[in-house]
């Protein structure tokens, strides 16, 4: 080592004297690269994709505010001059003269007490996903309120037509399920949890898949061979059966279900990312980076990942759709989210159990098919926008 150093020093003096050029300060020009600009333009050119994206985003944004749309608690209330936010704060019933730990604002006693000493502002739908309506005109499942004869609508209330609670806010726009819960409220919450679950599964499985694919493709050789064989074995396990078995002895919750589905979901992207890395690792700019002494991790991150991201992004909407379908089918079979959670799969299974109540199955069918169609349309538009050979008019 010392000899090496001495040898280095032996070579002639400072050849790299600072060049006599003063570098002028340069103003940064941050902007989107033209490739990205072209892609955005191409995506915007696909009307169907853009509309689908907006509708999906709108629905998702709406569902994020489900509590303000459908809840069994008022949004704001004034009680004895005090401003209350029942929708975010859990008030004990003692506050209003009761004895329970939480207040049921739909309870006639509490309602009259608060309205006598102030007022309440309710969300447009006065049911949450778990709220059981005790004033149903007939045994659940009940059809949508608007589909019933006017005199029948309020038959469940103590004072019938004249009851002050027989109002629009207590209507069941899409009927109730077989436990007397409002279908529209369950739909809102169910849509939200489906999409959130789908997004979480898509993102986590993409991260794992990209990681494995990147390592497998970049290093090649034995790493690649072993990874590929393992994935072949792994992918040939009938995952749905295994999921059924596992979810029967692991208490299903949002997170355990996510973990179980991730166990099999990550393989989707591996092949794609691996192929991109295999192709791109021979590019000259990768060789150039290696010659500069850049570490493997940095090369993969800075030079190769952007290439693989195109393929990954193109696949994302389709993976999201597939994730939602997996969750729905598990829920449908009863092995999904814990009982009582709002879920589209459970709605479908109720529809199957109650063929006399078509609003259940029709609602479930329309929602799921609409959601998946939107995702597929968005996915197609993204795919076309990333396709360099596609010519847009």
């Amino acid at each position, binding site marked *: 080592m010392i*000899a*090496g150093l*001495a*040898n*280095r020093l*032996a*070579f*002639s003096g400072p*050849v*790299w004297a*600072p*060049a006599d*050029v003063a*570098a*002028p300060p*340069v103003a*940064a*020009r941050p902007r989107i*690269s*033209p*490739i990205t600009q*072209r892609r955005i*333009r191409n995506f915007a050119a696909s009307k169907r994709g853009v509309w689908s994206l907006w509708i999906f985003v709108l629905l998702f944004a709406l569902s994020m505010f489900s509590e303000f749309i459908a809840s069994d608690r008022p949004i704001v209330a004034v009680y004895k001059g005090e401003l209350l936010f029942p929708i975010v704060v859990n008030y004990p019933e003692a506050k209003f003269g009761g004895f329970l730990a939480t207040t049921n604002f739909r309870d006639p006693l509490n309602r009259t007490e608060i309205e006598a000493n102030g007022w309440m502002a309710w969300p447009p739908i006065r049911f949450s996903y778990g709220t059981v309506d005790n004033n149903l005109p007939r045994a659940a499942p009940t059809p949508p309120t608007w589909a019933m004869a006017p005199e029948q609508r309020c038959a469940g209330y103590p004072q019938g037509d004249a009851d002050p609670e027989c109002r629009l806010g207590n209507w069941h726009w899409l009927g109730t399920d077989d436990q007397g819960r409002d279908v529209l409220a369950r739909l809102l919450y169910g849509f939200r949890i489906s999409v959130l679950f789908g997004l979480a599964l898509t993102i986590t499985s993409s991260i794992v898949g990209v990681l494995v694919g990147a390592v497998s493709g970049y290093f090649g050789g034995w790493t690649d061979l072993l990874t590929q064989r393992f994935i072949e074995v792994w992918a040939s396990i009938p995952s749905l059966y295994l999921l059924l078995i596992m979810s029967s002895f692991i208490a299903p919750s949002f997170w355990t279900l996510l973990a179980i589905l991730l166990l099999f979901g990550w393989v989707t992207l591996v092949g794609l990312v691996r192929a991109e890395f295999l192709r791109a690792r021979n*590019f*000259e*700019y990768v*060789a*150039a*980076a*290696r*010659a*500069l*002494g*850049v*570490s493997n991790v*940095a090369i993969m991150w*800075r*030079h190769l990942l*952007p290439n693989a991201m195109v393929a990954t992004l193109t696949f994302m909407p389709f993976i999201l759709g597939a994730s939602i379908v997996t969750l729905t089918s598990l829920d449908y079979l009863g092995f999904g989210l814990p009982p009582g959670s709002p879920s589209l799969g459970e709605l479908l299974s109720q529809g199957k159990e109650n063929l006399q109540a078509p609003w259940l199955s029709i609602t479930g069918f329309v929602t799921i098919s609409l959601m998946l169609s939107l995702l597929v349309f968005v996915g197609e538009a993204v795919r076309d926008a990333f396709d360099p050979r596609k*010519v*847009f008019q």
Partner: protein
Amino acid sequence: MSTLLEVEDLQIGFHMDTTTIHAVRGISFSIEPGKTLALVGESGSGKSVTANSILRLLPESAEVQGTIRYKGRDLLTMGDRELRGIRGNDISMVFQEPMSSLNPLHTVEQQVSEIITTHRGLRRAAARAETLRLLDMVGLPNAETRLDDYPHQLSGGQRQRVMIAMALANEPDLLIADEPTTSLDVTVQAQILGLLQDMQRRLGMAMLFITHDLGIVRHLADTVCVMTQGEIVERGDVADVFGNPQHSYTRHLLAAEPSGAPPLADPDAPVIASTENLRVWFPIKRGVLRRTVGHIKAVDDVSLEVREGQTLGIVGESGSGKTTLGRAMLRLLPSEGRIVFMGSELSKHGWNEMRPIRKDMQIVFQDPFGSLSPRMTIGEIIAEGINVHMPALSEDERERKVSRALIEVGLEAAMMHRYPHEFSGGQRQRVAIARALVLEPRLVVLDEPTSALDMSVQAQVVDLLRMLQTRHRLTYLFISHDLRVIRALANELIVMKDGKVIEAGPAADIFANPASAYTRQLMRAALTDVLVPPPDNDVLGFDKSTAQRGPQ
């Protein structure tokens, strides 16, 4: 004699997203039967687009105006059926890239006989005999045994011969050759050009020859049209244009050949890098157990020495192992044998031990389009090595270093925020050089840094490299197949063939007095028009006197 092909006021535009790019702006030329017209220009001048427009081979996004008359018939307006009768029969084409223009899934026989059966309706046996005759004619060795070969089993030159056999199958009146030799080695290039001349003489066809290589034009063409930016700026007899160029662009082209001599070498300068019996062998594995049955000896027992501040040129045709040698010296490829760089033996270093040394040894690659990441700005690309080797530098200092490197290679500091695709090939190669130089290396491996560039840009890059070498006492390992560039830069020279060193020594000596037959052959093929006047009866088939006689 009536004209065979007449192009009048041809205009071609391409619709890109929102704008129209005018590739060809109103050019006219005509070709007489049996004559050769050369269309010369640098990349982007519109010459290939012109060639493709004649047989209406352009993509749909192209808008073509003007007239192209073949024997009085307008090719641009005729019906598809009529046009198909002309394509491959009266007018045929030879393309640049013989690998991608042959179908990899069809055998040689299938490809050639398809043309014959389509246009002449010959049956199997007759078509086979005819195919054989054609392949014999274009000089494919052992044609009979090669009929069932697939394109990948042929060499580049053989593939181009098959392409020519296909183009000549129906004895066309006009052959359009679009850079038919550009992707071939120099010796093969000479053979193919000789073949084309011979065929032209025998069949009496006219030829439209598209090229960027002035040397070829001088040998081959009767008349020449010089194209730049979609317009023909000069036309005339080859002798007139070359002897007395009128337009400034023609003069610029003619003056563009890399010239000059390398800076004087100090024979006592310390040896900065050397190899001893360097070997890069790739195992050939066969069978279920993947047993190694042999080796491809890409680099076989190469010993070399590079002295500080000097240039060692490595010359050879494709497949000679010169690029592998360069990469092995930088330890980008596993190798056997000693590599000594600045006193330390690299062959014993692992990847992590190599990292600090990489600062002192850099590489510039051939293809400036492939060697710059399209998703990073110029500044990020150049700063990448700084981040690795000088992580302590502040943001300001780093930017100053980057802009100094850019200015040094003749670019502007403000360019650091732009992306590679905004630059021309020559500018990109300057960026690649800046990326290597910003680390202040001692040894730079230049792997064909000029071969992907236009001739005039090549000369500029050669000048730049020489200027940088003298300014910073840089040591170059210059890999190239282009002897003209090598002659302008190298002090010492190594000639490689099949992984072995054929000849080594001071460059001037080898150029003046090549010892081996292979070197002599290389020099003759590459430098005919520069060093020696073309002999009357060239071994490789350049035969100007007979070519001009033409068919009567």
